[in-house]
Protein backbone atom coordinates (compact mmCIF):
# COMPACT_ATOMS: atom_id res chain seq x y z
CA UNK A 1 0.00 0.00 0.00
CA UNK A 2 1.53 3.30 -1.02
CA UNK A 3 1.38 6.62 0.83
CA UNK A 4 -1.43 8.05 -1.31
CA UNK A 5 -3.86 5.20 -0.67
CA UNK A 6 -3.05 5.33 3.07
CA UNK A 7 -4.06 8.99 2.97
CA UNK A 8 -7.52 8.08 1.60
CA UNK A 9 -7.97 5.28 4.08
CA UNK A 10 -7.27 7.66 6.94
CA UNK A 11 -9.75 10.19 5.56
CA UNK A 12 -12.45 7.56 5.20
CA UNK A 13 -11.81 6.31 8.72
CA UNK A 14 -12.02 9.84 10.11
CA UNK A 15 -15.25 10.49 8.21
CA UNK A 16 -16.74 7.27 9.54
CA UNK A 17 -15.77 8.23 13.06
CA UNK A 18 -17.42 11.65 12.77
CA UNK A 19 -20.60 10.19 11.26
CA UNK A 20 -20.75 7.58 14.00
CA UNK A 21 -20.25 10.11 16.77
CA UNK A 22 -22.88 12.47 15.38
CA UNK A 23 -25.41 9.64 14.99
CA UNK A 24 -24.68 8.41 18.48
CA UNK A 25 -25.03 11.83 20.05
CA UNK A 26 -28.26 12.46 18.16
CA UNK A 27 -29.76 9.25 19.49
CA UNK A 28 -28.64 9.80 23.08
CA UNK A 29 -29.55 13.47 23.20
CA UNK A 30 -33.06 13.00 21.85
CA UNK A 31 -34.85 14.78 24.72
CA UNK A 32 -33.69 17.31 27.22
CA UNK A 33 -36.74 18.01 29.30
CA UNK A 34 -39.95 16.38 30.42
CA UNK A 35 -42.75 17.82 32.48
CA UNK A 36 -45.99 16.72 34.07
CA UNK A 37 -48.61 17.59 36.61
CA UNK A 38 -52.00 16.35 37.68
CA UNK A 39 -54.77 17.44 40.01
CA UNK A 40 -58.27 16.19 40.69
CA UNK A 41 -60.17 19.40 41.47
CA UNK A 42 -59.97 23.17 41.22
CA UNK A 43 -62.66 25.62 42.28
CA UNK A 44 -62.65 29.37 41.81
CA UNK A 45 -66.20 30.70 42.11
CA UNK A 46 -68.15 33.33 44.02
CA UNK A 47 -69.54 30.42 46.06
CA UNK A 48 -66.13 29.37 47.28
CA UNK A 49 -62.66 28.40 46.21
CA UNK A 50 -60.25 25.53 46.49
CA UNK A 51 -56.74 25.35 45.05
CA UNK A 52 -55.64 22.63 42.63
CA UNK A 53 -55.96 19.56 44.80
CA UNK A 54 -54.42 17.07 45.37
CA UNK A 55 -51.61 18.39 43.21
CA UNK A 56 -48.77 16.21 41.91
CA UNK A 57 -45.94 17.95 40.05
CA UNK A 58 -43.13 16.09 38.32
CA UNK A 59 -39.73 16.95 39.84
CA UNK A 60 -36.88 17.97 37.54
CA UNK A 61 -35.50 15.02 35.56
CA UNK A 62 -32.00 14.99 34.06
CA UNK A 63 -29.48 12.59 32.59
CA UNK A 64 -31.11 9.21 32.09
CA UNK A 65 -33.14 9.48 35.25
CA UNK A 66 -36.82 9.26 35.97
CA UNK A 67 -39.14 10.50 38.67
CA UNK A 68 -42.64 10.00 40.02
CA UNK A 69 -44.90 12.18 42.17
CA UNK A 70 -48.35 11.48 43.50
CA UNK A 71 -50.91 12.95 45.85
CA UNK A 72 -54.19 11.75 47.23
CA UNK A 73 -57.16 13.19 49.05
CA UNK A 74 -60.10 11.46 50.64
CA UNK A 75 -62.80 14.05 49.91
CA UNK A 76 -63.44 17.64 48.91
CA UNK A 77 -66.50 19.79 49.52
CA UNK A 78 -66.94 23.40 48.46
CA UNK A 79 -70.57 24.05 49.39
CA UNK A 80 -72.81 24.64 46.40
CA UNK A 81 -69.91 24.34 43.94
CA UNK A 82 -68.29 20.90 44.07
CA UNK A 83 -68.15 17.75 46.12
CA UNK A 84 -66.20 14.58 45.31
CA UNK A 85 -64.11 11.85 46.89
CA UNK A 86 -61.31 9.34 46.18
CA UNK A 87 -59.09 12.02 44.70
CA UNK A 88 -55.81 10.81 43.19
CA UNK A 89 -53.11 12.49 41.13
CA UNK A 90 -50.04 10.82 39.66
CA UNK A 91 -47.33 12.03 37.31
CA UNK A 92 -44.10 10.41 36.16
CA UNK A 93 -41.42 11.15 33.58
CA UNK A 94 -38.19 9.79 32.24
CA UNK A 95 -35.29 10.58 29.92
CA UNK A 96 -33.61 7.69 28.18
CA UNK A 97 -31.29 7.03 25.27
CA UNK A 98 -33.99 5.77 22.93
CA UNK A 99 -37.01 7.68 24.14
CA UNK A 100 -38.20 10.15 26.74
CA UNK A 101 -41.58 11.09 27.99
CA UNK A 102 -44.03 11.83 30.74
CA UNK A 103 -47.42 10.51 31.76
CA UNK A 104 -49.99 11.93 34.17
CA UNK A 105 -53.27 10.72 35.63
CA UNK A 106 -55.88 12.51 37.72
CA UNK A 107 -59.11 11.05 39.02
CA UNK A 108 -62.12 11.91 41.17
CA UNK A 109 -65.17 9.91 42.21
CA UNK A 110 -68.74 10.79 43.27
CA UNK A 111 -68.54 14.13 41.49
CA UNK A 112 -71.34 16.65 42.10
CA UNK A 113 -71.01 20.11 40.54
CA UNK A 114 -73.33 23.06 41.23
CA UNK A 115 -75.87 21.13 43.29
CA UNK A 116 -76.37 18.33 40.83
CA UNK A 117 -76.25 20.31 37.58
CA UNK A 118 -73.35 18.04 36.56
CA UNK A 119 -72.67 14.66 38.16
CA UNK A 120 -70.40 11.70 37.42
CA UNK A 121 -69.59 8.51 39.24
CA UNK A 122 -65.97 8.86 38.22
CA UNK A 123 -63.69 11.09 36.18
CA UNK A 124 -60.27 10.01 34.88
CA UNK A 125 -57.87 12.27 32.99
CA UNK A 126 -54.93 10.38 31.50
CA UNK A 127 -52.26 11.84 29.21
CA UNK A 128 -48.85 10.85 27.92
CA UNK A 129 -46.16 12.53 25.85
CA UNK A 130 -43.28 10.73 24.21
CA UNK A 131 -40.31 11.65 22.05
CA UNK A 132 -38.01 9.33 20.19
CA UNK A 133 -36.51 8.78 16.79
CA UNK A 134 -39.99 8.69 15.23
CA UNK A 135 -40.84 12.19 16.49
CA UNK A 136 -42.77 13.60 19.40
CA UNK A 137 -46.43 13.16 20.17
CA UNK A 138 -49.01 13.15 22.95
CA UNK A 139 -52.36 11.51 23.52
CA UNK A 140 -55.16 11.30 26.06
CA UNK A 141 -55.97 7.60 25.75
CA UNK A 142 -57.67 6.28 28.86
CA UNK A 143 -59.47 9.53 29.70
CA UNK A 144 -63.09 8.75 30.49
CA UNK A 145 -66.23 9.88 32.29
CA UNK A 146 -68.36 7.32 34.14
CA UNK A 147 -72.16 7.73 34.21
CA UNK A 148 -72.02 11.42 33.39
CA UNK A 149 -75.09 13.66 33.66
CA UNK A 150 -75.07 17.25 32.40
CA UNK A 151 -78.20 19.33 32.90
CA UNK A 152 -80.40 16.26 32.84
CA UNK A 153 -78.73 14.56 29.87
CA UNK A 154 -77.01 11.29 30.70
CA UNK A 155 -74.14 9.32 29.28
CA UNK A 156 -74.16 5.89 30.84
CA UNK A 157 -71.17 3.64 31.36
CA UNK A 158 -67.47 4.43 31.37
CA UNK A 159 -66.84 6.25 28.12
CA UNK A 160 -64.48 8.62 26.40
CA UNK A 161 -66.03 11.88 25.19
CA UNK A 162 -65.09 13.69 21.98
CA UNK A 163 -62.35 16.25 22.64
CA UNK A 164 -63.57 19.78 23.43
CA UNK A 165 -67.26 18.90 23.68
CA UNK A 166 -69.02 22.15 24.57
CA UNK A 167 -72.36 22.02 26.40
CA UNK A 168 -74.34 25.15 27.23
CA UNK A 169 -75.57 25.62 30.79
CA UNK A 170 -78.33 28.26 30.46
CA UNK A 171 -78.15 30.90 33.14
CA UNK A 172 -74.87 29.51 34.42
CA UNK A 173 -72.38 29.49 31.54
CA UNK A 174 -71.05 26.43 29.75
CA UNK A 175 -68.98 23.30 30.31
CA UNK A 176 -66.24 21.83 28.14
CA UNK A 177 -65.88 18.07 28.41
CA UNK A 178 -62.53 16.49 27.61
CA UNK A 179 -60.98 19.90 27.06
CA UNK A 180 -57.65 19.34 25.29
CA UNK A 181 -54.91 21.94 25.07
CA UNK A 182 -51.99 20.73 22.93
CA UNK A 183 -48.51 22.25 22.72
CA UNK A 184 -45.24 21.64 20.89
CA UNK A 185 -44.37 21.18 17.21
CA UNK A 186 -44.88 17.41 17.04
CA UNK A 187 -41.33 16.91 15.82
CA UNK A 188 -39.00 17.77 18.64
CA UNK A 189 -41.57 18.67 21.28
CA UNK A 190 -45.08 17.75 22.30
CA UNK A 191 -47.40 18.38 25.22
CA UNK A 192 -51.04 17.99 26.16
CA UNK A 193 -53.30 19.19 28.95
CA UNK A 194 -56.64 17.49 29.45
CA UNK A 195 -59.38 18.91 31.66
CA UNK A 196 -62.15 16.31 31.72
CA UNK A 197 -64.79 18.67 33.13
CA UNK A 198 -64.19 22.40 32.86
CA UNK A 199 -67.11 24.61 33.90
CA UNK A 200 -67.02 28.27 32.96
CA UNK A 201 -69.39 30.41 35.04
CA UNK A 202 -70.60 33.49 33.19
CA UNK A 203 -72.58 36.64 33.96
CA UNK A 204 -74.08 39.09 31.55
CA UNK A 205 -72.61 42.53 32.13
CA UNK A 206 -74.27 45.65 30.75
CA UNK A 207 -77.17 45.55 28.34
CA UNK A 208 -80.64 47.04 28.54
CA UNK A 209 -83.81 45.40 29.79
CA UNK A 210 -86.56 45.42 27.18
CA UNK A 211 -89.71 46.16 29.20
CA UNK A 212 -91.95 44.63 26.55
CA UNK A 213 -90.22 41.24 26.32
CA UNK A 214 -88.41 41.13 29.64
CA UNK A 215 -85.21 40.20 27.80
CA UNK A 216 -81.88 41.92 28.04
CA UNK A 217 -80.58 43.49 24.88
CA UNK A 218 -76.86 43.79 24.33
CA UNK A 219 -74.27 43.38 27.04
CA UNK A 220 -71.35 41.01 27.17
CA UNK A 221 -70.81 37.69 28.87
CA UNK A 222 -68.08 37.77 31.44
CA UNK A 223 -66.49 34.74 33.03
CA UNK A 224 -66.89 34.98 36.78
CA UNK A 225 -65.49 31.67 37.86
CA UNK A 226 -64.46 28.16 36.89
CA UNK A 227 -64.53 24.61 38.16
CA UNK A 228 -62.18 21.89 36.89
CA UNK A 229 -62.43 18.18 37.68
CA UNK A 230 -59.72 15.84 36.42
CA UNK A 231 -56.74 17.70 34.98
CA UNK A 232 -53.61 16.03 33.65
CA UNK A 233 -50.64 17.50 31.78
CA UNK A 234 -47.58 15.95 30.17
CA UNK A 235 -44.84 17.37 27.95
CA UNK A 236 -41.53 16.48 26.36
CA UNK A 237 -39.03 18.65 24.47
CA UNK A 238 -35.57 18.28 23.01
Amino acid at each position, binding site marked *: MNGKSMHWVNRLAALGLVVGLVAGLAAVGSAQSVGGQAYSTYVNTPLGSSAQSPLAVLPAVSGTDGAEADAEGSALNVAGALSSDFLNSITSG*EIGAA*EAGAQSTASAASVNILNGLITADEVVANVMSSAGQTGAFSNADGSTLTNLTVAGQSLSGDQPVAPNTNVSLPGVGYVVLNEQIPSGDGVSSSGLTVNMIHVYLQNLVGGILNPLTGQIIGGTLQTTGEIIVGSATSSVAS
Partner: protein
Amino acid sequence: MMREHRSLIVWPSLIAAGLLAASCTDQPKVSMAPNRPNFWLTPPPAVCTGGKWTGGGRIDPAYPDPTAGSNYDGADEDLAHEEEYFAYKLPNMTGKVTFGFNIFLAVNSETPSRCYVQKGEIEVNHHPAKTSWHVSIHDGTDAQGNTVYASVFADASGRGYCLVVGIPDNYMWARVNGNKGYELTQFEVCDNDRGQPQNSRHDAMRWRAAGDVSHDPGDTHLIYLTGGNIVEHGS
Protein backbone atom coordinates in the same frame (compact mmCIF):
# COMPACT_ATOMS: atom_id res chain seq x y z
CA MET B 1 -4.65 -75.58 34.26
CA MET B 2 -7.87 -76.61 35.93
CA ARG B 3 -7.79 -73.47 38.08
CA GLU B 4 -7.26 -71.28 34.99
CA HIS B 5 -10.20 -72.90 33.22
CA ARG B 6 -12.44 -72.30 36.27
CA SER B 7 -11.61 -68.60 36.29
CA LEU B 8 -12.43 -68.36 32.61
CA ILE B 9 -15.95 -69.56 33.44
CA VAL B 10 -16.44 -67.63 36.71
CA TRP B 11 -15.49 -64.11 35.53
CA PRO B 12 -17.87 -63.92 32.54
CA SER B 13 -20.65 -65.23 34.80
CA LEU B 14 -19.97 -62.53 37.38
CA ILE B 15 -19.99 -59.82 34.70
CA ALA B 16 -23.24 -61.13 33.25
CA ALA B 17 -24.83 -61.22 36.70
CA GLY B 18 -23.70 -57.69 37.39
CA LEU B 19 -25.18 -56.42 34.13
CA LEU B 20 -28.45 -58.21 34.88
CA ALA B 21 -28.61 -56.72 38.38
CA ALA B 22 -27.87 -53.26 37.07
CA SER B 23 -30.62 -53.48 34.50
CA CYS B 24 -33.15 -54.39 37.20
CA THR B 25 -32.42 -51.44 39.50
CA ASP B 26 -34.58 -48.29 39.40
CA GLN B 27 -32.06 -45.90 37.95
CA PRO B 28 -32.78 -42.64 36.16
CA LYS B 29 -33.16 -42.92 32.44
CA VAL B 30 -30.33 -41.62 30.38
CA SER B 31 -31.43 -39.43 27.53
CA MET B 32 -29.91 -40.26 24.21
CA ALA B 33 -31.08 -36.98 22.72
CA PRO B 34 -28.45 -34.54 21.48
CA ASN B 35 -27.01 -32.30 24.17
CA ARG B 36 -28.83 -28.96 24.39
CA PRO B 37 -28.03 -25.84 26.36
CA ASN B 38 -29.47 -25.70 29.85
CA PHE B 39 -31.84 -22.90 28.91
CA TRP B 40 -33.50 -24.96 26.19
CA LEU B 41 -36.42 -25.88 28.43
CA THR B 42 -35.97 -23.47 31.32
CA PRO B 43 -35.23 -19.75 31.34
CA PRO B 44 -31.60 -18.71 31.70
CA PRO B 45 -30.47 -17.86 35.20
CA ALA B 46 -31.48 -14.32 36.11
CA VAL B 47 -28.67 -11.85 35.77
CA CYS B 48 -29.19 -8.39 37.14
CA THR B 49 -27.71 -5.63 35.03
CA GLY B 50 -29.43 -2.79 36.88
CA GLY B 51 -31.82 -0.54 35.07
CA LYS B 52 -34.28 2.31 35.47
CA TRP B 53 -37.97 1.96 34.78
CA THR B 54 -40.62 4.67 34.81
CA GLY B 55 -44.20 4.88 33.64
CA GLY B 56 -47.84 5.18 34.43
CA GLY B 57 -51.31 5.08 33.02
CA ARG B 58 -54.35 2.90 33.25
CA ILE B 59 -55.46 -0.71 32.81
CA ASP B 60 -58.98 -2.14 32.73
CA PRO B 61 -58.98 -5.83 33.72
CA ALA B 62 -62.17 -7.41 32.39
CA TYR B 63 -64.95 -8.57 34.71
CA PRO B 64 -65.28 -11.29 35.88
CA ASP B 65 -62.13 -12.87 34.39
CA PRO B 66 -59.27 -10.58 33.31
CA THR B 67 -57.68 -13.40 31.32
CA ALA B 68 -60.80 -13.62 29.14
CA GLY B 69 -60.73 -9.95 28.16
CA SER B 70 -59.49 -8.69 24.80
CA ASN B 71 -56.89 -6.55 26.60
CA TYR B 72 -55.32 -9.51 28.40
CA ASP B 73 -51.62 -9.83 27.63
CA GLY B 74 -51.28 -13.56 27.22
CA ALA B 75 -48.23 -13.21 25.01
CA ASP B 76 -45.57 -12.11 27.45
CA GLU B 77 -45.73 -14.81 30.09
CA ASP B 78 -45.50 -18.56 29.80
CA LEU B 79 -44.00 -21.30 31.92
CA ALA B 80 -40.53 -20.25 30.87
CA HIS B 81 -41.15 -16.51 31.10
CA GLU B 82 -42.89 -15.80 34.37
CA GLU B 83 -40.57 -14.77 37.11
CA GLU B 84 -43.17 -13.65 39.56
CA TYR B 85 -44.99 -15.81 42.00
CA PHE B 86 -47.38 -14.91 44.78
CA ALA B 87 -47.89 -17.25 47.67
CA TYR B 88 -51.36 -15.97 48.39
CA LYS B 89 -54.33 -17.44 46.58
CA LEU B 90 -55.88 -14.30 45.14
CA PRO B 91 -59.22 -13.59 43.49
CA ASN B 92 -59.40 -11.61 40.26
CA MET B 93 -59.08 -7.85 40.56
CA THR B 94 -61.21 -6.20 37.87
CA GLY B 95 -62.25 -2.73 36.80
CA LYS B 96 -60.38 0.51 36.45
CA VAL B 97 -56.81 0.69 37.81
CA THR B 98 -54.56 3.75 37.47
CA PHE B 99 -50.91 3.86 38.43
CA GLY B 100 -47.54 5.57 38.24
CA PHE B 101 -44.06 4.44 39.21
CA ASN B 102 -40.32 5.01 39.12
CA ILE B 103 -37.90 2.18 39.91
CA PHE B 104 -34.10 2.18 40.07
CA LEU B 105 -32.56 -1.30 40.15
CA ALA B 106 -29.19 -2.28 41.56
CA VAL B 107 -27.13 -5.44 41.88
CA ASN B 108 -27.19 -7.20 45.21
CA SER B 109 -23.56 -7.76 46.20
CA GLU B 110 -24.41 -10.82 48.26
CA THR B 111 -26.38 -12.46 45.49
CA PRO B 112 -25.26 -10.86 42.19
CA SER B 113 -27.83 -12.76 40.21
CA ARG B 114 -30.65 -10.92 41.96
CA CYS B 115 -31.71 -7.33 41.43
CA TYR B 116 -32.93 -5.27 44.29
CA VAL B 117 -34.70 -1.92 44.19
CA GLN B 118 -32.32 0.81 45.27
CA LYS B 119 -35.05 3.44 45.29
CA GLY B 120 -38.54 3.65 43.96
CA GLU B 121 -42.10 4.86 44.25
CA ILE B 122 -45.19 2.98 43.12
CA GLU B 123 -48.74 4.31 43.33
CA VAL B 124 -51.68 2.11 42.34
CA ASN B 125 -55.38 2.97 42.59
CA HIS B 126 -58.17 0.41 42.23
CA HIS B 127 -61.17 2.58 41.48
CA PRO B 128 -64.18 0.26 41.94
CA ALA B 129 -63.10 -0.44 45.53
CA LYS B 130 -61.65 3.05 46.11
CA THR B 131 -58.40 1.52 47.29
CA SER B 132 -55.02 3.16 46.91
CA TRP B 133 -51.64 1.59 47.57
CA HIS B 134 -48.31 3.34 47.81
CA VAL B 135 -44.89 1.72 47.93
CA SER B 136 -41.85 3.78 48.94
CA ILE B 137 -38.39 2.27 48.69
CA HIS B 138 -35.36 4.15 49.93
CA ASP B 139 -31.80 2.92 50.35
CA GLY B 140 -32.86 -0.52 49.21
CA THR B 141 -35.63 -1.15 51.71
CA ASP B 142 -39.37 -0.61 51.86
CA ALA B 143 -41.37 1.00 54.65
CA GLN B 144 -41.01 -2.11 56.81
CA GLY B 145 -37.23 -2.19 56.40
CA ASN B 146 -37.22 -5.18 54.07
CA THR B 147 -35.12 -5.49 50.94
CA VAL B 148 -37.30 -5.41 47.83
CA TYR B 149 -36.06 -7.79 45.15
CA ALA B 150 -36.88 -7.46 41.49
CA SER B 151 -36.49 -9.44 38.32
CA VAL B 152 -36.09 -8.41 34.70
CA PHE B 153 -36.70 -10.96 31.97
CA ALA B 154 -37.13 -11.06 28.22
CA ASP B 155 -40.80 -11.66 27.65
CA ALA B 156 -42.22 -14.61 25.80
CA SER B 157 -43.51 -12.50 22.91
CA GLY B 158 -40.01 -11.37 22.04
CA ARG B 159 -41.18 -7.75 21.90
CA GLY B 160 -39.34 -6.46 24.95
CA TYR B 161 -38.73 -6.93 28.64
CA CYS B 162 -40.79 -7.26 31.77
CA LEU B 163 -39.98 -6.10 35.29
CA VAL B 164 -41.38 -7.72 38.42
CA VAL B 165 -40.94 -5.80 41.67
CA GLY B 166 -41.48 -7.55 44.98
CA ILE B 167 -40.56 -11.08 44.04
CA PRO B 168 -40.54 -13.74 46.77
CA ASP B 169 -39.60 -14.11 49.49
CA ASN B 170 -40.06 -10.58 50.73
CA TYR B 171 -42.58 -9.22 48.20
CA MET B 172 -43.00 -5.57 49.22
CA TRP B 173 -45.07 -3.64 51.69
CA ALA B 174 -47.53 -1.07 50.38
CA ARG B 175 -49.23 1.60 52.46
CA VAL B 176 -53.01 1.39 52.11
CA ASN B 177 -55.38 4.37 51.70
CA GLY B 178 -53.11 6.94 53.23
CA ASN B 179 -52.25 5.53 56.65
CA LYS B 180 -54.59 2.59 57.15
CA GLY B 181 -51.72 0.13 57.42
CA TYR B 182 -49.50 -2.02 55.22
CA GLU B 183 -49.98 -5.17 53.19
CA LEU B 184 -47.91 -7.33 50.87
CA THR B 185 -48.02 -6.55 47.17
CA GLN B 186 -46.30 -7.29 43.88
CA PHE B 187 -45.98 -5.16 40.73
CA GLU B 188 -45.17 -6.11 37.14
CA VAL B 189 -44.79 -4.05 33.97
CA CYS B 190 -43.70 -4.86 30.42
CA ASP B 191 -42.06 -2.42 28.01
CA ASN B 192 -42.84 -3.74 24.55
CA ASP B 193 -42.45 -0.72 22.30
CA ARG B 194 -39.03 0.71 22.94
CA GLY B 195 -37.97 3.10 20.24
CA GLN B 196 -41.29 2.70 18.45
CA PRO B 197 -44.48 4.78 18.43
CA GLN B 198 -45.87 4.67 21.95
CA ASN B 199 -49.53 4.29 21.04
CA SER B 200 -49.25 0.64 20.11
CA ARG B 201 -50.84 -0.48 23.40
CA HIS B 202 -48.33 -3.28 23.78
CA ASP B 203 -47.07 -2.19 27.19
CA ALA B 204 -48.69 -4.01 30.07
CA MET B 205 -49.09 -3.91 33.85
CA ARG B 206 -50.04 -6.36 36.61
CA TRP B 207 -50.81 -5.71 40.27
CA ARG B 208 -51.29 -8.17 43.09
CA ALA B 209 -52.29 -7.30 46.64
CA ALA B 210 -52.79 -9.58 49.63
CA GLY B 211 -55.74 -7.55 50.92
CA ASP B 212 -55.14 -8.03 54.64
CA VAL B 213 -55.58 -4.33 55.34
CA SER B 214 -57.36 -3.00 52.27
CA HIS B 215 -59.90 -5.86 52.22
CA ASP B 216 -59.38 -5.58 48.47
CA PRO B 217 -57.26 -8.61 47.65
CA GLY B 218 -56.71 -9.51 44.04
CA ASP B 219 -54.69 -10.08 40.92
CA THR B 220 -55.31 -7.96 37.85
CA HIS B 221 -53.26 -10.37 35.70
CA LEU B 222 -51.07 -8.89 32.98
CA ILE B 223 -53.19 -6.35 31.10
CA TYR B 224 -52.34 -4.08 28.15
CA LEU B 225 -52.50 -0.39 29.00
CA THR B 226 -55.64 1.53 28.09
CA GLY B 227 -53.49 4.66 28.19
CA GLY B 228 -50.08 5.75 29.40
CA ASN B 229 -46.64 4.32 28.86
CA ILE B 230 -43.96 2.04 30.33
CA VAL B 231 -40.34 2.95 29.65
CA GLU B 232 -37.11 1.17 30.51
CA HIS B 233 -34.69 4.05 30.16
CA GLY B 234 -31.20 3.32 31.36
CA SER B 235 -28.86 1.35 33.51
